[in-house]
């Protein structure tokens, strides 16, 4: 059973629909207790990092997520859900959950032809093997929509990069924690495959 953290994140229902489509059972919850005890957690997010963090704290979900990660629960963060795993974000600005060292920063691109938000399909280039990225080829593209990018402090936490006026981190993680800047729920078959791999993942790195 997948527990989807419900904190009024925009893509919540999209994530559930994608899970339904590939036969994965999932529930939404706003209940901190339920998150802390979950078998497997999807931490989605679209929208503003600051207001997202505020909602998490109001509901005690910040603490629940930290507890779950410490317990070894497999966690998949998506987009703003990935950004909030870091120490903080320039969007707001706001503090993050501090589960991984680093910051979320606004794109500052030199090439005026490169637009912000970074919207569309882009290649995810694996930098170190991870069970959730298994099967992704060099030419495979996933769907992105964001104006801020992940900048983890430890290169060991970077599992993939994507090129947009320079390389940025598109998937990061550590142990039982994994998160993507792209949206698996909007990335066609490749994204649905990733969700299925997450449902089977034991939380190990390789």
């Amino acid at each position, binding site marked *: 059973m997948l527990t989807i953290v419900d904190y009024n994140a925009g893509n919540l229902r999209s994530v559930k629909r994608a899970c339904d489509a590939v036969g994965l059972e999932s529930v939404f919850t706003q209940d901190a207790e339920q998150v802390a005890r979950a078998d497997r957690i999807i931490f989605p997010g*679209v929208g503003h990092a600051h207001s997202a963090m505020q909602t998490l704290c109001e509901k005690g979900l910040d603490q629940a997520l930290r507890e779950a990660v410490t317990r070894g629960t497999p966690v998949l963060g998506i987009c703003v859900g990935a950004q909030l795993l870091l120490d903080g974000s320039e969007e707001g600005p706001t503090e993050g959950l501090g589960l991984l060292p680093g910051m979320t920063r606004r794109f500052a691109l030199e090439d005026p032809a490169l637009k*912000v938000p970074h919207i569309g399909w882009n290649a995810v280039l694996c930098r170190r093997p991870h069970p959730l990225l298994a099967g992704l080829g060099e030419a495979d593209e996933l769907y992105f929509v964001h104006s801020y990018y992940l900048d983890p402090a430890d290169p060991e936490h970077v599992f993939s990069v994507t090129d947009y006026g320079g390389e940025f981190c598109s998937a990061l993680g550590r142990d039982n924690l994994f998160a993507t800047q792209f949206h698996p729920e909007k990335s*066609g078959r490749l994204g649905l495959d990733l969700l299925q791999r997450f449902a089977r993942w034991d939380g190990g790195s390789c």
Partner: protein
Amino acid sequence: MLSKRVVACLDVRDGKLAKSVKFVDTKDIGDPIEKASQYYEQGLDELVFYDITASSDRRDIMIDVVEEVASHIFIPFSVGGGIRSVADATKLRLAGAEKVNVNSAAVDNPKLIAEISEALGAQSTILSMDVLRVEPSASIPSGYEIVIHGGRTRTGRDALAWAIEGERLGAGELVVNSIDADGTRDGYELTLTRRIAEAVGIPVIASGGAGTPEHLYQVLTEGRADAALVASMVHYGHYSVGDIKRYLHERGVKIRMGW
């Protein structure tokens, strides 16, 4: 590097798929969900649904369409037509639309763009504009005027200035639709698209006039568009989405090929 996007546009009236020619003659051409699924299988990058339902009491049908689409199609899609308030936008967003398009209502009330952007985020807020070529004048220096209500009403607003204003108000993306080119299948309005794409820092989706894959090539290169919208050329089976993407790929346009 980011790929250029091929976006299919489905005009939906009373829950059925329709296609207009120069915004006047509309005819039903089938079930929107069936078409959308077909394009998804063919590797389409994104979808836009325009609700052209005339009567407001039938608009809730669109919510059903959106929910159905969102349960079957796992690529981004946006919905436009008749969005007049943050509540309208939020309802569509919750039904599963990634983004919403505002058009006429934003011209009447520009604050709407800021309000939707605030509520849903810039990435979910698309400003669509219908543009008519006119003689340049003091009030329309670019020679491109914004028209509303499906192209019937001229607004006296300069399209280039409106694009910049839309970005400032919080739109995350622009759809630039040429009324002159719409439905002609003679190609996109390249000058208009390029001028707007170069004037703003947000992505531009070119719309109106696609008839051949060559037209998409032109607008994605010379026209500087980030995405190209297609309608009748795929709806009537002249080309498949796969044909178009292969053509663009072969011509060296960065395009998503595996799916």
